[in-house]
């Protein structure tokens, strides 16, 4: 392997968080990972948060007072913004994830053909691009809807 190719393959974290000058699919790849990590972080917080329903890590059963204190701490402007963003990334990650599963099983690929100028990947046209845009638009709609419920 040439030094240049080796360097391209070893860009690590900077490689996948910098999709500049790549196509829409590469941006979708980056956002799939960023939204995945963000949701994992939220899920950990949510599991910790809901454990206060039973009094927290050292609780022994459902506790009205601890739950009330937990709700008072999380049901505010910041909590609302976090929940709105969570719904947004969940919707994007879900729809883009369905696209990835369908493409993994070859269900939304175009027929292979000879490369022609301007050499755009034919397999990534139409349905795949539409699904990425659907993921973006529906994520924004879901965030707006959540905003109207929470605020």
């Amino acid at each position, binding site marked *: 392997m040439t030094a240049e190719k080796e360097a391209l393959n070893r860009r690590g974290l900077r490689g996948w968080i910098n999709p500049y000058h790549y196509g829409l699919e590469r941006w979708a790849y980056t956002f799939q990972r960023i939204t*995945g990590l963000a949701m994992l972080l939220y899920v950990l917080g949510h*599991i910790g948060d809901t454990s206060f329903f039973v009094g927290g890590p050292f609780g022994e059963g459902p506790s*009205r007072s601890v739950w009330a204190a937990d709700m008072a701490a999380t049901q505010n402007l910041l909590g609302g913004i976090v929940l709105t963003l969570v719904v947004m990334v969940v919707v994007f990650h879900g729809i883009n994830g369905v696209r990835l599963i369908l493409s993994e099983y070859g269900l939304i690929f175009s027929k292979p053909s000879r490369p022609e100028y301007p050499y755009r990947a034919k397999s990534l046209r139409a349905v795949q691009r539409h699904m990425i845009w659907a993921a973006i638009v529906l994520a924004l709609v879901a965030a707006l809807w959540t905003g109207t419920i929470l605020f």
Partner: protein
Amino acid sequence: MKESSLMLMQYVTAIAAIVLVTIHLLMQGVIVPYSTAIDFQQVLSVYKSWVDGAMLEVLLLVVVAHGFNGLRIILLELRQSASWTRNVNWASLIVTAAVMAYGTRTVILAVTGAVT
């Protein structure tokens, strides 16, 4: 476990998570109003209901398995070596089991614990 089996598990948990998270979100603000959904008595009745309580437990297992396997995939993609792969695999298995156990403890205590 083979990587291909883990990837299949990632897809199966993804589809399951889409269904369960959609139901969960609808129950937390659309079908049930948000202010009611976070009320102590309402949350208790959800945990005590066999169907809703079991669904929350399955949601926990599915989302945690999918999330930590996803993190494992990202970490293995960033760096390749036998020891890194072994360590990341074991660490993700242990953390996944620990988080699942902590979340399951909440469900069990909510169902069986005395209300105070």
